[in-house]
């Protein structure tokens, strides 16, 4: 059965997404996978608004509360060994409880470490990245922070990225 994108959405939010106009990427950018999975280095990127409390400050939720049409466009780094107790979340549009209980539902560091151990993938990068998904305006993602994270991933010789928008 096809995935129903609106199954778990309140009607008002579903209607918002159904009528929202957006420019479709043209052409859609495309980088074919350059080598077999078991030779690829993977990076993980989520927009769950999580961060490592021991390394980074939260996303700026206070400013969003003052300016509801603004969302913090910056990003945070999460090491591959990050564990649940180090992680906090500043995403005001979801209940963060399940993510804080098991970060693998958005940033699967443990699952990819297992896949690395089994030889299914080549390796998992040392650093992974988190954005905060509420972005009424995506200019800064497009022009600054997206290319910056792409550069950091390339610096680590990453071939492929698993993206989990939240």
């Amino acid at each position, binding site marked *: *059965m*096809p*995935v129903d*994108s*609106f*199954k*778990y*959405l*309140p009607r008002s939010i579903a209607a918002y*997404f*159904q009528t929202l106009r*957006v*420019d479709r*990427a043209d052409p*859609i*950018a*495309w*980088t074919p*996978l*350059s080598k077999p*999975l078991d030779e690829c280095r993977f*990076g993980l*990127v989520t927009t*769950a608004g999580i961060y490592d409390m021991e390394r980074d400050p939260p996303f700026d939720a206070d400013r969003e*509360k003052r300016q*509801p*049409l603004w969302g913090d466009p910056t990003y945070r780094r999460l090491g591959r060994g990050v564990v649940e107790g180090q992680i906090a979340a500043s*995403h*005001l*549009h*979801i*209940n*963060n409880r*399940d*993510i804080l*209980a*098991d970060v*693998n*539902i958005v940033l*699967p560091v443990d*699952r*990819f470490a297992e*896949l690395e151990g089994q030889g299914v993938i080549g390796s998992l990068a040392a650093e992974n990245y988190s954005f905060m998904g*509420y972005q*009424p305006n*995506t200019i800064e*993602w497009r022009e600054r922070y*997206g290319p910056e*994270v*792409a550069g950091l*991933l*390339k610096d680590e010789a*990453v*071939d*492929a*990225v*698993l*993206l*989990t*928008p939240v």
Partner: protein
Amino acid sequence: MLAQTFEEAGLSTVLVTMMPFWAEKIGAPRTLGVEVPFGHPLGMPGDREMQMKIIGAALSLLGETRGPGVMSEVEVEWPQPSDEARKDWQPLEASPIIKMMRDQAQARAQERRQET
């Protein structure tokens, strides 16, 4: 959005989303759709098997040569009843934008009452 930027930089991406409708609309390079509540793209907390099933499907899609704009789906059984899951992912406190829209709607309703 980020997928486009990463692909332009020479990274292959696969997007795992509960909103394939939206991914198709914006033209994501590779999309795996999965019917789960918001905030749970890779499944239930603590459910390693469900997480691996979704990740496995995402990895298979990465090898696809059909793209760009290729879409696939993976079926998972969500263990909560739909009504409960629909409430459970939402923030305990309404988000700033939802609050603002509610306030505006209330103000408009009040204006209408005063006019009549």
